[in-house]
């Protein structure tokens, strides 16, 4: 019953291994080593044989939609839940049966869970006080942590007197003051508004780098995960589908789900055709559309059903049929969405497919809705996924 292979469908031209090494770090043993953990709720496996490793100083994100099981993974690392199978190792030590208060990790809660009856500095000092660190040392380390998150001068406030962003900083300081082996972040920025969220992404990342923190972050926000992480693990239905650097996962998604979850995926269902030179023909299910060449792995059987996908920024638009030898499809502009720094075009392709293309800054070609366009892309950019 063991299903440790997290790739039920095959990637066509990804050559990276399942566990990519990411920014190769010098450290020899991983700080966190998760070995095939399973967590069941009744007969359903909320977490299904998940394995990953996090190196010292790495920012590792678990990305997935709600209900993917990612928070459950985090809680098993923190010690609030124990896995039904598998093992959780921190700094080489098995954490099975070790209660949360004896684990060298600290969790930043999504709702922050600040102690409402304590001041900012008492909140931050809490972990040190529980470990009976001498008072003078506590004061010094609390000051240090507060200056790192830029909260000097707010020591005496109660959490209720702080803004959302400030509460977030207190929660962060309260965790990192303990110098844990790993800081666990549960949707750290989800409660902040858009602008603050973007500012905190940058700040959180720089604090992490400055303090050399090892972080495991759970989020459903793909942009957040890509901007902050050294590596991303995409989780869905209790399983990890792909682990890699943000670029690897975005550019070489191994499954259609990963492709869709990490960004806009322009798709066409269809089947593979005959091999032409170094490429293979792809016949869209929509018979109004002509076949076009795609890259596949060696020896793919013609006739196999597949879905072809392309990122919006890889799509070029022109009003004249281009002469270059790249694949080309006709379409009709359906909607033009001006979003300031870029313009989004929704383009009808064939009968029922709505694709997205983007144009930025000075290169914005002026198309209006109803205009016929030719869509073109580099052969190597398109990806084929099998069911």
């Amino acid at each position, binding site marked *: 019953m063991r299903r440790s292979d997290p790739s039920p469908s095959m990637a066509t031209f990804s050559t990276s291994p399942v566990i990519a090494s990411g920014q190769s770090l010098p450290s020899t043993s991983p700080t966190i080593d998760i070995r095939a953990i399973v967590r069941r709720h009744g007969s359903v496996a909320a977490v299904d044989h998940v394995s990953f490793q996090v190196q010292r100083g790495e920012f590792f994100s678990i990305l997935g939609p709600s209900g993917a099981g990612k928070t459950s993974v985090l809680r098993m690392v923190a010690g609030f839940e124990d896995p039904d199978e598998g093992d959780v190792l921190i700094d080489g030590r098995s954490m099975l049966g070790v*209660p949360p208060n004896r684990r060298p990790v600290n969790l930043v809660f999504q709702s922050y869970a600040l102690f409402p009856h304590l001041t900012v500095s008492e909140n931050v000092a809490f*972990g040190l006080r529980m470990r009976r660190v001498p008072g003078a040392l506590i004061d010094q380390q609390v000051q240090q942590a507060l200056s790192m998150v830029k909260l000097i001068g707010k020591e005496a406030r109660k959490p209720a007197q702080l803004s959302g962003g400030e509460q977030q900083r207190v929660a962060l300081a309260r965790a990192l003051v303990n110098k844990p082996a790993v800081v666990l972040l549960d949707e750290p920025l989800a409660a902040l508004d858009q602008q603050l969220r973007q500012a905190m992404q940058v700040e959180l990342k720089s604090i992490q780098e400055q303090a050399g923190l090892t972080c495991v972050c759970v989020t459903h926000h793909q942009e957040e995960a890509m901007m902050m992480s050294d590596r991303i693990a995409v989780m869905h239905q209790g399983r990890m589908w792909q682990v890699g650097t943000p670029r690897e996962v975005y550019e070489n998604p191994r499954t259609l789900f990963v492709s869709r979850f990490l960004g806009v995926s322009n798709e066409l269902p269809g089947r593979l055709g005959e091999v032409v030179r170094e490429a293979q023909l792809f016949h869209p299910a929509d018979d109004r559309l002509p076949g076009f060449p795609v890259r596949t792995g060696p020896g793919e059987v013609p006739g196999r059903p597949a879905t072809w996908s392309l990122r919006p920024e890889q799509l070029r638009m022109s009003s004249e049929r281009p002469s270059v030898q790249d694949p080309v499809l006709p379409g009709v502009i359906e909607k033009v969405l001006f979003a300031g720094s870029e313009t989004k075009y929704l383009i009808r392709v064939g009968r029922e497919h709505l694709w997205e293309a983007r144009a930025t800054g000075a290169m914005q070609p002026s198309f209006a809705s109803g205009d016929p366009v030719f869509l073109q892309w580099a052969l190597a950019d398109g990806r084929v996924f099998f069911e």
Partner: protein
Amino acid sequence: MKQRSVGLKAVSLLSMLFLYGPIVVLVLYSFNAAHLSMAWRGATLKWYAALVHDEALLAATANSLFIALVSTIGATGLGGLIALGMEQMSHRRQQLLEGSLVLPLVIPEVMMGVALMLLFVMFKMPLGLTTVILGHIVFNIPLVTIMIRTRLRKLDPLLREAAADLGADSWQVFRYVSLPLLRPAIWGAVLVAFTVSLDDFLVTFFTAGPGATTLPLKVYSMIKSGVTPEINALSALLLVVSMMCVAGSLYLQRREV
């Protein structure tokens, strides 16, 4: 629209009058100079002064305060522990226990008084201060448990997780997180339990023996020989103390941490 609100005001005014009218009259006549008369003969404080010189009354006051104090401490301790213990139980058991906790609040107090008296007699306990205190603890436990439990359920369970995550063992979680956050509810429960104990008549009536006369019992025995302004004065004082306790309790329960 205007008319309706006038009607509403009239009704609420009448209800208030109905509720508080008798009490206002009682307090007012505690200042009446006339003895054994409903006619107003000018204001005086002599009835209050007379209370202080009544030896029996002072003894009853001492009994009342002692009983209220000890039974409040007992009921708060036991009730608080029950509230905390219930958190660890399964949902079904919690409901079951909650039901049995509410029961003493709805059964007629006379029955409770008689039942307690029979129990004490059965165990051959001489009726006195001890039995009164035990009786008061019994009817105050449900009150305390329910009040503390209400607050406990409003506490964010993540706070306890956060404390544990920061290295606190279960005692430290209780000592530094749960207890401070429960403190207003605990003091609120203390004040209510104290008031209810101070004011109780029925249970006290059945469980008190010689030498355990409390203020309400004293008032009752004084009334047998006619309503005197002295009784009014005593009642007014009891009323003031009770209302202050209840107001304090309400304030504590509403206050955020």
